[in-house]
């Protein structure tokens, strides 16, 4: 959010919006064709699904942690709520409408838990909030594993979950989330959240109720994490409580930190990059986590703003970048 809303003339805005819309449609069509002709096979498609889910998770966590400055280590907990609620519904009502209900119900349940968790804990600062959210996610996991096992089948997990996520669903949900979260950021609500991150006391003194906006960001983030969870269970057939533990929350955090806390496009880029790294390191799961750990330390030591800092990918950004590269190579100082 380094740029203000461009007060450009009406025409230029329409052209850029139309351009963005066109490129999205193109992207959708190209991939749909690749999939229909099996150029993109099941394995590659499942990678795309993972990327899409991670984009949604990273963007929603970024809203809470990067933009509003509330350090949440329990994001996977919200994901698990979406996953379980949706799975339970679609296992009972096997139809597209069942999936839609499951999707929405999962997200709404996650949002409700977000309010319940957020209201008491969001007054805590920094490290304490981190540990409290971590604790909340663990409590949710224990609830799913031991208390609600009548519905969730406990540690054995739920299997045979009907698969509904196809390319159109994946595309719409992922792009939709990115657009909606961006819209939130670039609005008075988003600006209020950012001001809380910058200086909570000053923000309060300017009339911004910090609790209200912290909870708003938290609940919105939880909602979209629920969507991601529902998508997960509706593609990968099987879920169990251990899939949504601290490790998953860390995975998401690494994406957000790598991409840049405060940059939506950064989260998107980082989600793709890290999934590709994951793919290569599939045979060595421990090595992947070792690298993640080292990555977190190295980023914090040498480039704490991550890839994009708090800037967004845009035409002017690309122009500046390529301009600078051109200068380095050809131009005199």
């Amino acid at each position, binding site marked *: 959010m380094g740029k203000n809303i461009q007060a450009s003339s009406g025409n230029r805005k329409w052209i850029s919006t139309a351009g963005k819309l066109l490129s999205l449609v193109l992207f959708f069509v190209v991939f749909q064709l690749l999939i229909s002709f099996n150029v993109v096979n099941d394995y590659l498609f499942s990678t795309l699904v993972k990327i899409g889910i991670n984009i949604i998770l990273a963007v929603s966590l970024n809203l809470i942690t990067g933009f509003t400055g509330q350090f949440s280590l329990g994001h996977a907990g919200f994901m698990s709520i979406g996953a379980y609620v949706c799975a339970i519904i679609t296992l009972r009502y096997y139809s597209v409408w069942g999936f839609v209900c499951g999707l929405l119900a999962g997200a709404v349940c996650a949002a409700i838990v977000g309010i319940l968790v957020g209201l*008491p804990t969001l007054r805590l600062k920094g490290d304490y909030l981190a540990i409290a959210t971590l604790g*909340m996610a663990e409590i949710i996991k224990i609830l799913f594993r*031991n208390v609600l096992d009548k519905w969730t089948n406990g540690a054995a997990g739920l299997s045979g979950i009907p698969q509904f996520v196809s390319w159109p669903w994946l595309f719409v949900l992922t792009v939709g989330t990115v657009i909606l979260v961006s819209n939130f950021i670039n609005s008075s609500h988003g600006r209020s959240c950012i001001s809380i991150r910058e200086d909570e006391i000053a923000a309060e003194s300017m009339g911004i109720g910090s609790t209200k906006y912290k909870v708003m960001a938290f609940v919105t983030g939880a909602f979209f994490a629920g969507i991601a969870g529902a998508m997960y269970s509706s593609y990968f057939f099987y879920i169990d409580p251990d899939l949504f533990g601290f490790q998953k929350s860390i995975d998401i955090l690494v994406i957000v930190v790598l991409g840049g806390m405060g940059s939506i496009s950064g989260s998107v880029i980082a989600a793709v990059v890290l999934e590709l790294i994951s793919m290569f390191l599939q045979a060595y799961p421990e090595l992947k*986590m070792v690298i993640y*750990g080292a990555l977190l330390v190295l980023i914090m030591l040498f480039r704490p703003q991550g890839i994009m800092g708090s800037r967004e990918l845009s035409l002017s950004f690309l122009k500046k970048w390529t301009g600078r590269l051109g200068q380095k190579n050809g131009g005199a100082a």
Partner: protein
Amino acid sequence: MEQFLQQVINGISLGSIYALMALGYTMVYGIIKLINFAHGDVYMIGAYVGYFCMTNLRLGFFPSLLISMLVCAILGVAIEKIAYKPLRNATRIAVLITAIGVSLFIEYGTMYIASPNPRSYPRLTGFMAKSYQVGGLTFSAQQILIIIITVVLMILLQLIVKKTRIGKAMRAVSLDRDAAQLMGISVDNTISFTFLLGSALAGAAGILVGIYYNSINPLMGMMPGLRAFVAAVFGGIGIIPGAMIGGYFIGLVEVMVSGYVNSMFRDAVVFAILIVILIVKPSGLLGKETREKV
């Protein structure tokens, strides 16, 4: 009644371990306001070093204990110098993320090198394998050992903190880093020493747990680490006696929940305690409120 008292004994043994770890958390937090996420992994390394000493090197318990503490002390100082010192003026979130990174690195590095499978400590012989019956209660030699060693270490710690110059330096840096520096105290060395002490205690806790529960694995540090952290917060983060009290409290709670309710709920209860403390009295049992100046 007997069963209850037996559980109390178990709780105190477990609590000793948590107290040792909680001390490390509380001292580090007191001096640089950081939740050392990697502390639980130092404890795990202590357990592994102890295993290595007693299995591969066939050393006795006490030499292994000392070596564990030494290795962990060095490890703790190394972590501080490499990962935390450069970030001393960064935001709290940045340091916390780094601590998480270090923790992952150590956990999965160990898993990669030493295999994720649990290992067992060698069976103890001689007086260590005995148990004693008093009244209707059983004390195993291990439990007695744990409690005695913990008490000795805590006394040593109190002596260091209260009676030595470096201990005074630790207290000074905790209160006001800049003023301490102006008084000629080397802040870097003091902080390193704090990590040294805390990590040595964690190492001791690790090898003691190895003896007590017998099984160790690379991820064993995570949950106990978090529980020890809750113990430190409960007693008052940054306050040494608080960590001791907190450790025993959490140990007893855990044993009681396991014994009388369901061991599956241990973690839920511990985290619930944390959340209640943070909401009701975040400065903990022995802590005082601090205010931000506007």
